[in-house]
C-alpha cells in the first residue's frame, strides 16, 4: 500500500516537473497570443461597465427580484377531482355503477349505457326469480306481460335495443337547443327500488 502511494507521489512530481519545463518554454508564446489579448478584452469590458450608469444595474436587479417574488408567491388553483376514487380504472363494482350513474347526464350514449346495464341486471334477476331463461324474460318484457311499471319497462326496452348513435351536434345546434335532451331523465332511484322489491318479494 505504501509502495503504491509512493508511486502516485512520484508520478505527480514528475508531471509537475514536466509542466514546469513546458510552461517555461512556451512562456513568450502564451504571453503574445493568450495573455495580452485577454487583458485587452478585460480592459474593454471594464470601460463598458463604467460607461453604463449604476442605476441601470439596480433597475435590472429590481426587475429580476420582482419576477422571482411574483413566481414564488403566485398560487395556481388546482381543480379538485370530483370523486377521487372514480378517476381510477373502473374495476370495482361500486365504481362501475357509480361511474354509470354519474355520467348519465353526459349524453345519449351514457344514458343508453346505464339503461343497458340495468336491463341486463333486471333480466338476470327476473330470470332467476321466475326460474325461466333471460330470453323468455326479454320476450315477456316486450309483450308487456311482466309486472313492470310502464316507464321502467320503456326504459328497460331502450336498454335492450341497440343504441341509436347520432352525429354529435355542432356548437350552434347546441346553443339553439339550450341544453335540451333527446331522452327523458332516467328514474334511477325508482328502478333500484323496483329491482330490490322484486328480489325480496315473497
Amino acid at each position: 500500500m505504501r509502495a503504491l502511494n509512493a508511486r502516485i507521489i512520484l508520478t505527480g512530481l514528475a508531471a509537475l516537473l514536466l509542466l514546469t519545463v513546458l510552461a517555461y518554454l512556451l512562456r513568450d508564446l502564451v504571453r503574445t497570443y493568450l495573455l495580452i489579448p485577454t487583458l485587452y478584452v478585460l480592459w474593454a469590458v471594464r470601460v463598458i461597465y463604467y460607461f453604463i450608469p449604476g442605476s441601470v444595474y439596480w433597475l435590472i436587479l429590481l426587475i429580476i427580484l420582482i419576477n422571482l417574488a411574483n413566481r414564488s408567491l403566485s398560487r395556481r388553483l388546482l381543480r379538485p377531482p370530483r370523486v377521487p376514487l372514480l378517476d381510477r380504472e373502473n374495476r370495482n363494482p361500486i365504481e362501475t355503477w357509480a361511474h354509470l350513474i354519474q355520467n348519465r347526464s353526459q349524453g345519449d350514449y351514457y344514458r343508453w349505457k346505464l339503461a343497458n346495464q340495468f336491463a341486463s341486471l333486471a333480466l338476470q334477476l327476473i330470470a332467476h326469480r321466475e326460474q325461466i331463461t333471460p330470453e323468455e324474460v326479454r320476450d315477456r318484457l316486450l309483450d308487456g306481460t311482466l309486472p313492470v311499471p310502464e316507464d321502467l319497462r320503456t326504459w328497460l326496452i331502450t336498454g335492450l335495443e341497440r343504441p341509436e348513435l347520432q352525429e354529435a351536434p355542432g356548437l350552434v345546434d347546441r346553443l339553439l337547443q339550450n341544453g335540451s335532451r333527446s331522452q327523458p331523465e332516467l328514474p334511477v332511484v325508482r328502478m333500484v327500488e323496483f329491482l330490490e322489491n322484486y328480489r325480496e318479494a315473497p
Partner: protein
Amino acid sequence: MNRVLLLGLLIYSLLLLGLLTVNGGPIVLLVPLLLYVMAGIYFAPGRLQLEASREIEPERAYPGDPVRVKVTITNRGSAVEDLLLEDPLPPGLEWINGDYRLLCSLASGQSVELEYSVRGDRGLYRFENTRAVAQDFFSIFRREASIPSPAQFLVLPYTPLIKKVAIRPRETRVYSGTIPAREGGTGVDFFGVRAYAPGDSVRHINWRVSARYPERLFINEYEQERVGDVGIVLDARRRSNIETPAGSLFEHQVAAAAAISQALLRDGNRVSLLIYGQFLDRTYPGYGKIQRERILQALTRARPGDSLVFDRLENLPTRLLPIRSQIILISPLLNEDLPVLIQLRVRGYQLMVVSPDPIAFSESAYPQSQTISLAVRLARMERSLLFANLQHAGVRVLNWDVSIPFEQAMHQVLARTPPPIRSLRV
C-alpha cells in the same frame, strides 16, 4: 465535483499562473494544497478486505413482529481509520431500533457488529450485501466495497385457526380420514345393512332385522371416513383485487387460504395450492407438515398481478386438479366468473367458494353521496344474484365480510358436512 479533481485543477492552475506571469505568489499558494494532497495520498485507505456474517432471529415471523438482524464485520486486511458501514434494508421493511449504519475505525483482525430490529408485512425479505466506505483523515480519497452477507427471512401470512372445513368430494383416497366416503365399513355414521359374512364382528349384528329372517343374520355397516384430494385455488388477479387506503383485500384471501390449508392438512387430506394471477404458482399435492410449510412459503410469496393469459378464470388449468376432487376457490369473484365455475361443477368437481366481500370492504372508502349509495345497492344486488346462481349450481359459497373474523364466518357456514350432491348436468 470530485475533491481530488478539484484540488488537482487548483494546484495546476496556480502553477501555470505563477509560471506564466513569472510571479512567485501563486507558486507559494500551491504549497499547502500540495502538502494536503500528499498527506491524503499517504494515508489513503488500501483495498478493503472485510468479511461479514449475518444472523437473523427469528427467520420466520408474523406481520408486525420484530425481527433482530445482527451483522458481524471482520477486517482481514490492514487497519482502516475511517470506515462507514451501512446495511441497506430490503424494500418493505420498517426499521424499529438499533444501528444499521455505523462510523468506526477497524484495526487488522478486529470485528464490529451492526445490530438492529425491523418489522414488515407478509413477504420474503432477502439481504444481499453490506456496504462499506473507507476514507483518509482529510476525506480526499475514498474506497467503497460491498461485502456479501446473504440471508433471508419470511414474514408468514396471518393464519386464523379454524377447527374444521367440512368437504365432501365425490372421490376419496384410500387412507382413513374425516370425509364420508359413501362406502360401507368401519366408521361412525350408519350406512346400511348387509348379510352377515364369516369374520364379521358379532357386535355389529342388527338383531331387529335378523329376527325377521330366521335363517339369516344381518349386520350394520357404517360409512367409511377417508381423506380426500383438495385443490385450493387462490385468485391473485389484480382486476379482482380491491385496494383501499385501509389495505388490500388480497391479504384477507391469503389469510383464508392459509387457514383452510392448515385445517385440511391437519385432517390428513392431500392438499395442493394454485395461485392464479400474473402466472401460475403451483404447490404440488402433498400431506403433512412439510406440505404445510410449502404452502405457507408459497402464500408468503403471493402477490396480485396482471396477465393477459390469466385475466379470466377460463384458463384455469383443470388438468392440474384431480378429477372429482374438491376445489376451494378463494376469490372476491367477478360476474364473468360464473360460467367457468359452473363448468367446473359439470366436470364433476365439488366446488367451494370463499369470497371476501369487496363491497363491504370498499364501501367506507367512498364519500357519502346518493350516487355511491345507489351504486352500493346495485352492486350488492349483482353479487347476491351471482351467489344465488352459484348455489343453484351446487357450489357452496361463503360470502365473507372481512370485518368478521374468518374463523367465525367459516364456522357459521362451512363447518358442517354438506349432504352428497350429484354432479351437475347441463
